[in-house]
């Protein structure tokens, strides 16, 4: 793995440069150990594809999504106002993020509050880089012919109608893409949305991620590809509680692409 420095907006501006895209990392991507690996994978891909990018670092703050979905509109709008002030201050035009919740709220709910940017989910951005030939995959990468299923994040799929970008990324890996019984617009939630990630599940007879894991196991896929740090956590836990961690691997599509390019001899 090549090492490189991820620049912050502040550093870029200090050098008189302005990057093409802002990589919005999100809270999970910044603080959660598992999700940090996804963040690094996205950064590696951007670096590999020679994309001029920067992050906000300590200047980034929660978009307010979990607060808003839990009913706290005040807190959400305060967060939005603060973030929009920072983003507009740097003159940001284009944002790429690894979190579908950040993606959805910045794309659909920030414009009315004064923050209009071109916002892309990392699966969309990676799919574009692949189609532009900016990503070179190793000839002997480990995903060829692998049976892979994609778990649609609600706020990328149903919420914004993006089903194809992540699938095209998996197909670029020459993998065998298999669909779950419930997929695309009928995809089943992992159980983390709507602020559920931050609370105990309500009383029931089953956990939602276990229910979704059953859908995964039905496909006998070797890898569940995800595009959301929360889905990733939920599916990892689901596979673990089904005692299938040895046979089913949960990976973000960015991690898959990053490991498929990282073995390319420079």
């Amino acid at each position, binding site marked *: 793995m090549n*090492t490189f*420095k*991820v620049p912050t907006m502040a550093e870029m501006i200090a050098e008189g440069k302005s990057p093409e895209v802002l990589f919005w*990392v999100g*809270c999970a*991507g*910044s*603080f959660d150990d598992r999700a940090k690996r996804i*963040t*690094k994978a996205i950064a*590696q891909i951007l670096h590999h594809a020679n994309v001029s990018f920067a*992050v906000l*670092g*300590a200047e980034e703050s*929660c978009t307010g999504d*979990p*607060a*808003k*979905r*839990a*009913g*706290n*509109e*005040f*807190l959400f*709008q*305060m967060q939005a*106002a603060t973030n929009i002030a920072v983003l507009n201050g740097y003159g940001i035009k284009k944002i790429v993020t690894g979190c579908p919740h950040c993606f*959805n709220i910045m794309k*659909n*709910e920030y414009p*009315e*509050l004064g923050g209009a940017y071109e916002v892309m989910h990392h699966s969309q951005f990676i799919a574009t880089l692949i189609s532009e030939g900016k990503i070179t995959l190793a000839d002997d990468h480990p995903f060829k012919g692998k049976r892979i299923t994609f778990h649609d994040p*609600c*706020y990328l799929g*149903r*919420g*914004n*109608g993006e089903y194809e970008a992540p699938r095209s990324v998996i197909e670029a890996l020459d993998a065998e893409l298999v669909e779950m019984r419930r997929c695309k*617009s*009928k995809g*089943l*939630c992992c*159980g*983390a*949305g*709507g*602020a*559920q*990630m*931050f*609370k*105990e*599940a*309500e*009383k*029931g007879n*089953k956990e*939602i991620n276990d*229910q979704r894991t059953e859908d995964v196991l039905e496909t006998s896929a070797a890898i569940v590809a995800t595009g959301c740090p929360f889905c990733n956590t939920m599916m990892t836990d689901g596979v673990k509680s089904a005692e299938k961690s040895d046979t089913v691997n949960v990976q973000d599509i960015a991690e898959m692409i990053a490991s498929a390019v990282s073995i390319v001899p420079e």
Partner: protein
Amino acid sequence: MLGTGIFLFSRRIAFVRRNINMGRDIDLSDRKAERWKTMARVAIGQSKMVARPVAGILHICVYLGFVIINIEMLEIVLDGLLGTHRIFSSLGSVYNVLIAIFEILAFAVLVACVIFLIRRNVIALARFKSPEMGGWPSMDANIILVVEIVLMFAFLSMNATDAIAQSLDVDHYVKAGSFPISQFLVPMYSGLSEAGIVIAERGFWWLHIAGVISFLVYVPYSKHFHILLAFPNTYYSNLNKSGTLNNMASVKKEVDLMMDPTADPYATPPPPDNNAEPEAPLSFGVKDGTDLNWKQIMESYSCTECGRCTSVCPASMTGKLLSPRKIMMDSRDRVDEIGHNRDANDGVFKDDGKTLLGSYITEEELWACTSCQACVDACPINISPMGIILDMRRSLIMEDSKSPETITNMFNNIENNGAPWAFPAASRGDWIKDA
């Protein structure tokens, strides 16, 4: 009878219309072309019904049958009013084709309704057996299906006895119509005398028209109201992506004030401006039926209780208390109750100690929602139970500060360190060091 029917129907429609208008305002007057297209696709074209092919195709049979057989209703009503018999029979061969089409559709409706009854009562599909479907809702569904079967049977029998009367050259019975389905009913009635045939034919005619008029009155009291409301309801569909949750304008005003360094919090408010927009609602979110916006109330009256929302809800399918269908049914029942309360108290609501959130819908239900929008996607007429759920959470949090402790912690963390977890904001960029 026709007059009484129309009077009762109109009175109920006026009641529901007033109830819808009790809701808060929401401006849906934009994007007219797109709205017409949505209505054409979703309501007229039934595009979302076929996501479940069996129910979808059977429903299309009943829908087409209902719409097209109504042309025959026109003739039946005109005959009744003018004392004519088969007034359109002068259309000749066109009339024969029409009657044949009506008969085939009537048979399709009959078969579909029988299958629907079997699905509900014999096979007992899970989505028709949720707790909220006990008692009246199940009865309502069965009444509608049985009435439709009776109506179609009466229509076909009317034709069968008419055909016999025609063959017997009974006075008044013009030779008209072709009867591809009812010909099979002829043996049932062929034993009757000439007078008996006429009585039977008249009897079925009356049964059909009386049934239809009673049904007209019944429809707006029942879940069957969707046959009318589906059209305006889809016209006023939410046209935004389903992931989008509205920004509350009343909150924006306050946040703008807080963020504006020149704002003077102690300034005297400007004098009321008559042209100004109406004041922001006094409370945040939805607590009672009248806190819903008028579109949400319309949705509650449009709901057919089909349960597609509940059957795809991740919370419902894992045994949680939440059922999106129940959210819609409770909203309708509460708004109806508020409407009757107003009517009984000279148009002014008298406090009955109840609220939609609390007396009908519990916090546990609301907190089970993952906001995954599966219910919104599944609804054949674009109802959003999720919208009501999230608006109720707004009331819980912003009016009553009621949230599970972990959610309160999440709010505090975001407020204090800009992340839902308790990590220092300054360490947000730490992952960079090891990249």
